[in-house]
């Protein structure tokens, strides 16, 4: 029950504190299983917490750390038994550990239920995450295997049944679109949290069009009729960006006075426009 530290499967778990040796014994206590409560108490005592205050995520982390050190299927089997026991007990917690005799208000119950629900989901998710490693391993192993997949001999090929073809040419084109669609697997992005509402590039395109159509234009004219402050800002930024690219010149006769802009680019391509303001994308 006191393995050496390097055998400790929880070495990289957060806050290993003083319960390290006990929890390291998971492997042992699984083989001579004393009873489900031992396990749960182990987990709880490790975090020196009242059972109603058990940090569910900490317990889960321990459990996962334990799981990650299991290798073969048999141990995975044991681990799933452990999962049943641990999760069931935690499930019982709501009913069993609510303060007796006190007035239990519905909100507190709901809170506890929500927490257990969270925990159940966490365990569930982690279980799938764990088992996905098995999938990865099997897929990888089988990828290397070579099955006999040889084209039929010509003489046998002639005897193959007719092909059933149901696609119209438009179906076929739709299928092609699907096939050419990028297959990359997207990650969970945070872009939607600060999606740019106004594109500097779009505004720059407007600015460029306006500037190239006349001799000179004031900034006031450039934003005439625009009510949205964001767009005014975006147009101003695009003016600065265009100035940086030497695509325009401006003159201001007095501080805070009228800003007059002139198109100054000898060469200009839409490509420049496409990358304009890229610094502002993030």
């Amino acid at each position: 029950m006191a393995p050496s530290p390097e055998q400790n499967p929880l070495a990289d778990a957060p806050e290993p504190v003083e319960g390290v040796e006990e929890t390291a014994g998971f492997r042992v206590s699984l083989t001579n299983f004393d009873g489900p409560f031992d396990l749960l108490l182990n987990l709880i005592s490790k975090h020196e917490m009242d059972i109603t205050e058990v940090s569910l995520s900490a317990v889960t982390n321990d459990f996962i750390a334990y799981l990650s050190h299991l290798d073969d299927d048999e141990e995975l089997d044991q681990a799933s038994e452990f999962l049943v026991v641990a999760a069931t007990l935690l499930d019982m917690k709501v009913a069993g550990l609510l303060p007796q005799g006190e007035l239990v208000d519905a909100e507190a119950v709901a809170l506890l239920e929500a927490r257990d629900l969270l925990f159940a989901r966490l365990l569930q998710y982690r279980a799938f995450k764990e088992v996905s490693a098995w999938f990865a391993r099997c897929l990888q192993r089988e990828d290397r295997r070579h099955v006999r997949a040889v084209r039929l001999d010509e003489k046998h090929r002639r005897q193959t049944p007719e092909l059933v073809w149901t696609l119209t040419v438009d179906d076929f084109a739709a299928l092609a679109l699907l096939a050419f669609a990028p297959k990359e697997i997207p990650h969970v992005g945070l872009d939607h949290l600060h999606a740019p509402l106004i594109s500097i590039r779009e505004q720059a395109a407007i600015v460029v069009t306006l500037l190239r159509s006349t001799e000179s234009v004031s900034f006031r004219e450039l934003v005439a009729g625009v009510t949205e402050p964001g767009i005014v800002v975006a147009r101003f930024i695009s003016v600065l960006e265009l100035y940086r690219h030497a695509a325009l010149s401006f003159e201001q006769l007095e501080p805070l006075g009228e800003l007059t802009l002139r198109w100054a680019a000898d060469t200009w391509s839409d490509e420049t426009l496409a990358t304009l303001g890229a610094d502002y994308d993030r």
Partner: protein
Amino acid sequence: MTDDSSSSSVIEEAVRDTPLSERVEAILLIVDEPIGLVALAAAVGSPVPAVRQTLETLVDDYDGRGHGPRRGFELREVGGGWRLYVRENHDDLVAEFIGGQAPARLSQAALETLAVIAYKQPVTRSQVASIRAVNVDSVVRTLLARGLITELFADSETGAINYGTSDALLQHLGINSLDELPPISPLLDDGADGFDEGTIR
């Protein structure tokens, strides 16, 4: 060799003329997907038990436990049927000979989604998403495109499509049936139920 022979007489003739093991081998040599025991028995015109016995003998035979030498190929039961494979220790040799590129690996997200679908099928996208806590649409599309999962049926009420794993997945995993998936807790079912109802049972 009788061109005008009827279907049944072809098989009868073969049954009369040649050992079952040869007929089984002939079919195994030309199949391009795992062939199930019953289909194989029908193809060679022999009873299922005899074919099963023959397959076992062939497995032993190819593995060098019969009369001849060990073979460079082996007979495996994968994805619900039997198929000839290059013996595993020659895979590197064959890979080098073929020189093909390794297929793209699945992302962790795809693997987890696949695991959820494998254990919880039939399951809808939104159910998978509730377990994985992210939108899984594009991952599901990837898995569909790879043929690892299939659309099983649409929910009669909501119209949501239920997904399940394909036989191809079993082949890619090198297992014969879903029973061979490593067991995970039966509690997972309860957890899902509790979750769907928004309560703990």
